[in-house]
């Protein structure tokens, strides 16, 4: 585990304190599989990866002096901030075939820099970077990082309890929320 000092500083975990390789491999597989599910439009399967109490959200970015930007200001404007019902509504909308911004787009996700930040019982905090490519006639890239809190389910497998998506764009195009 991280030293309390390192945690406060916001440092990544010391290499001597790395979580066991098997756990890392499992989490990596889980995230890659999620990306594959989304790339292949299996939205209902994707919904099942999330806890019933999930918070799935992305704060807007602010250009402030270094170190001053916080994502936890009360009522901070988000790009999106959904619970499970919100995610389900988005999937239902996609399934109508009438989500004009999405219909006919090809999407590809790249998940990298997977780092286990903290392990506490059945809960794991994971950081991963992403790029999502979205194209129809135009091409759009979305870049950022995610901080996930995932829980090992009693019967095996993982459930995403919270995902904070930090997009790096100052001005953003027509985003997909399936990140």
């Amino acid at each position: 585990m991280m030293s309390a000092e390192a945690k406060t500083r916001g440092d990544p975990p010391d290499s001597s304190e790395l979580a066991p390789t098997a756990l890392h491999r499992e989490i990596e597989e889980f995230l890659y599989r999620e990306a594959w599910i989304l790339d292949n439009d299996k939205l209902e399967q994707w919904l099942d990866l999330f806890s019933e109490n999930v918070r799935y959200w992305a704060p807007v970015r602010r250009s402030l002096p270094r170190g001053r930007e916080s994502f936890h200001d009360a009522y901070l404007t988000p790009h999106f901030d959904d619970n499970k019902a919100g995610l389900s509504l988005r999937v239902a909308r996609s399934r109508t075939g009438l989500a004009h911004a999405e219909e006919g787009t090809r999407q590809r996700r790249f998940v990298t820099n997977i780092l286990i930040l903290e392990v506490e019982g059945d809960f794991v905090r994971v950081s991963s970077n992403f790029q999502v490519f979205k194209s129809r006639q135009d091409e759009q890239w979305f870049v950022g990082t995610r901080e996930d809190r995932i829980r090992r389910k009693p019967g095996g497998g993982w459930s995403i309890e919270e995902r904070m998506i930090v997009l790096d764009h100052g001005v953003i195009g027509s985003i997909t929320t399936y990140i």
Partner: protein
Amino acid sequence: MSVRARVDSAGEKPSQLEREYGVLVDASDSTVSPRVFSDPGLYKLEGERVFGRCWLYVGHETQVAAPNSFITAYMGEEGVIVTRGRSGKVRVFLNSCRHRGMRLCRLDYGVALKFQCPYHGWTFSNEGKLVAIPEFESGYHKNIEADKWGLIEVPRVESYRGLIFACYDEGAVSLADYLGEAKWYLDLCFNRTAAGMKPLPGVAKTKWPGNWKFGAEQLGGDNSHAIWAHSFLVKLGMVQEFGGGDAWTRDFQVKCTNGHGFILLNEDPTHIPPALQKFREQIKREAATRLDPTQQDLVDVVHVGTVFPNFSFIEFMGSMFIRTWHPRGTDNTEMWTWLMTEGDAPPEVTALQRDLTTRNFGPAGIVESDDSEMWSGCSETSGGFLRKQIPLNYSMSHSYGKTDPHRPGLIHRTPTEIAAFGFHEFWYSLMQRE
């Protein structure tokens, strides 16, 4: 259809613009040329004749409430700093050093007594005064008049109900006069309580590849797109939540003078979350002390509108946002959207409004995403060699507008396009005026 010249009945000659482009906005049949959205020459002229003359929204009073606070914003394509200096007055300066024009401030907001240019260190106070140049003695031999090299100030700054507007035109009419008939409709949202509306922290900055006017005209005068562009709402059974009110009095659009336009739609209160319904009752009680009887009846409806040229807002079933459309070329628009809440709303109401607005109209808004798709798609064709020669149809209920002694402006029940066309009519009048 070929370009044609028109001489009106008073015998006045066509304007220079009309001689060059033909009739771009034709009031005789409510049509608009696609060139309005795509022509680079018109875009450049628009920067001067529309953005250079009209009142432009730059920020909210609550964002620069603290002494020496500032926000950065845009007026058309020019970046500006909106700051409340030590005099307590809000002033607007171009965000550009007087030396070589370098962008002075790259932050979204903050508190600053001075702005120092990163290029050569020229330093300006937050009242625009040049207070330091590093080479004042060694290089300039003390021979430079600081008074002549202060920040370029935008001459007119005025507020309406907490909304700060600025204008490049020193001789422009007052903001209140410019808003004119629009004030009555803006008050339904922005003057119904003493605390007023205020923006939440952060601003959602998004972009779409199309001309800004497609967005501005829609929020000022298009309700009929809703069940088509957002047809997924129909499929998911969500559309009966609005509309269906008494036409003309609770489902109508308004064309105001100076290009402003508003849409009001009846709401089904059973679809409003209970916490918000309760708060709305409080709002209505307060509104009764501030608004006239006709206005009071229109407080709990959907409110959508555009203040010409590029400030819009939507209050829809609990969602509330304000927005500016920033032109970034003929076919690129940067949209700045602020989520809003009532100034004295309890935390659970603010949280709820943030939630609703984000879901519907945020950068990934389930309603918003479809709209920018349409605006981009219309822009895409507007520059085509053949397409640009053939006018766009804005004729829905052309000539059927009515006036009402209790409500300003020209009114038509939904659906209509009189306000969308009114937007372009005013645009054209400004463009023709040299």
